[in-house]
């Protein structure tokens, strides 16, 4: 009799232990079930509030404007007074090919603090693992009068004489003497597209830092010499800036 009771107990115990609880087993989901051991494929996630910070460095230190203290690869001493640029098609990606466009075009002007942070609230949660963006505007977007009501109009307009559209970047300052101004202006000149796309792995989706190493526009793979002459119509110089830009101007962390 005693044995029968023990057997019944053992069977009951093993039955209850075998009955696994179903539910959401992802700890970051809002309906995460701590008791669940079997994924029912029905997890809900809170929307993501994405902040993208744009940071600017020269030779690994934070940019200081208006100081004639920087030296480039051709031994020119230079200052930086103006830095404005466009980043477009800012997109988050998951490993299985889901894409979310965060912003079509974002204008950054280092003299306007509000442009240095881009906040995109209420993004549907996905397991995003990378971010991609375009420096400048690709040829589909780089069309005269396409962005009449954006904050980079009118100052970023690129004359029709040089192919129309918009500047990608206005990087300006003095070099060697305060009497020499340089204007490193990039854009799609004479119908050629000099924009480029970059993709970076990300770990923290809420806070993404897009960093520009300004000095790298002027080196690697090719040295770029500052000039008081305009470079907007200079296809050779635009080509150098693009290839230097793709290489290592941007990083993300």
């Amino acid at each position, binding site marked *: 009799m005693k044995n029968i009771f023990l057997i019944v107990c053992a069977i009951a115990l093993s039955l209850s232990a075998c009955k696994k609880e179903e539910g959401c087993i992802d700890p970051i989901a809002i309906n995460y079930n701590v008791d669940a051991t079997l994924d029912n494929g029905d997890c809900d996630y809170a929307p993501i509030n994405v902040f993208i910070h744009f940071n600017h460095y020269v030779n690994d230190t934070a940019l200081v404007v208006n100081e004639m203290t920087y030296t480039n690869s051709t031994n020119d001493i230079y200052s930086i007074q103006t830095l404005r640029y466009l980043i477009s098609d800012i997109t988050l990606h998951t490993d299985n090919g889901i894409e979310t466009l965060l912003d079509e075009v974002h204008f950054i002007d280092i003299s306007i603090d509000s442009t240095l942070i881009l906040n995109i609230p209420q993004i549907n949660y996905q397991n995003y693992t990378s971010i991609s963006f375009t420096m400048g505007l690709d040829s589909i977007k780089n069309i005269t009068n396409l962005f009449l009501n954006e904050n980079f109009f009118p100052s970023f307009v690129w004359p029709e*004489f040089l192919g129309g559209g918009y500047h990608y970047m206005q990087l*300006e300052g003095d070099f060697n003497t305060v009497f020499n101004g340089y204007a490193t202006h990039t854009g799609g000149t004479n119908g050629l597209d000099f924009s480029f796309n970059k993709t970076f792995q990300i770990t923290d989706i809420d806070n993404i830092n897009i960093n520009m190493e300004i000095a790298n526009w002027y080196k690697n793979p090719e040295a770029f010499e500052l000039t008081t*002459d*305009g470079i907007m119509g200079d296809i050779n110089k635009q080509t150098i800036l693009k290839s230097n830009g793709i290489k290592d101007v941007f990083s993300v962390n």
Partner: protein
Amino acid sequence: MKLGTYIFLGIILLFVFSCKKDLAPISGCTDNTAVNFNTNAITDDGSCIFFNTTPITIETPSGFPNMNIPSNNPMTVEGVALGNKLFHDKILSGNEMQACASCHLQSASFSDTNQFSAGIDGFLGDRNASTLVNVGWNNSNFWDGRASSLEEQAYDPIVNPIEMNDTWINIEMKLNADNEYPTLFKNAFNIDYIDSIHVVMAIAQFERTLISANSKFDKYLRGETQLTSSELGGYAIFNSEKGDCFHCHGTQMFMDNLFHNNGLDIEPFTDLGLGKITNNASDNAKFKTPTLRNIEFSAPYMHDGRFSTLEEVVEHYNSGGEYSLTVDPLMKKLGVGLQLTNQEKQDLVAFLRTLTDSDFIGSN
């Protein structure tokens, strides 16, 4: 007996009084959105008169963004007409000798031909009177940008001691006592007392109609006319980095809504411009880029009217300008300049004259 009578009469009175309301309710306009809304009226007698203005839609010229129109001051026919009248009325000055239009003449691109303008008491200002051309697209106003809206801007000259030198209390008194203005303000804004807020709103509405987009250059872009070879040559220099006019005077607005130090002076500056407003030394001697539309008629030029001709202006850029801490890097060759030939300089001026819009100047 006496007491009973009083009570009886009292009851009858009460009865009559309460019945009166039911039998003969106050009638009038019961719609609280009407101009003649009667708060005591119970039955509507169909007498409501509604405030009704005629909206104006601004047609955006080709290549222009949408105009900056504050949501609380929409454009109306009534508001613009009132603003036009105020703009030209000397009632807005202390001794009733000057109107806005006294220093902002249509024939001079709504500027005047003086280097500095004299106020009602003969005092001279220290900056050249601004033109009023396409000001509806300005992000800021005055050479130093201290007024963000046209409404805000209009508050200033009327009470400036060296300009129209009146007080708002006095202006409100004069306008409210006037034969015409109370009705005009009622029709434009549905107000019974004229205040400074609505004076500047009307003036701003009028100023937003000062649109110039029908110059020879516009007609050229629309394929309606040809430019001469000299004008075309100037157009090309203007839009090349050789002339490099377009970075500040680009687009069909011919201005960038920004501030620059274009190398006019060495330090110390006599006029800090934007720097005086922001208290930021890096803004010293920066001034708002003016549009070049109708520039032919707005001489003299620069914030201090130092240049009397367009040739002198071109020569300033051609010579490269002066160094100072805040000079714009786009003045790339200080002291050396653009090195344009005489022909190129003439071409540039010829192109600038294609920005003349005779309709706007009122000479047609």
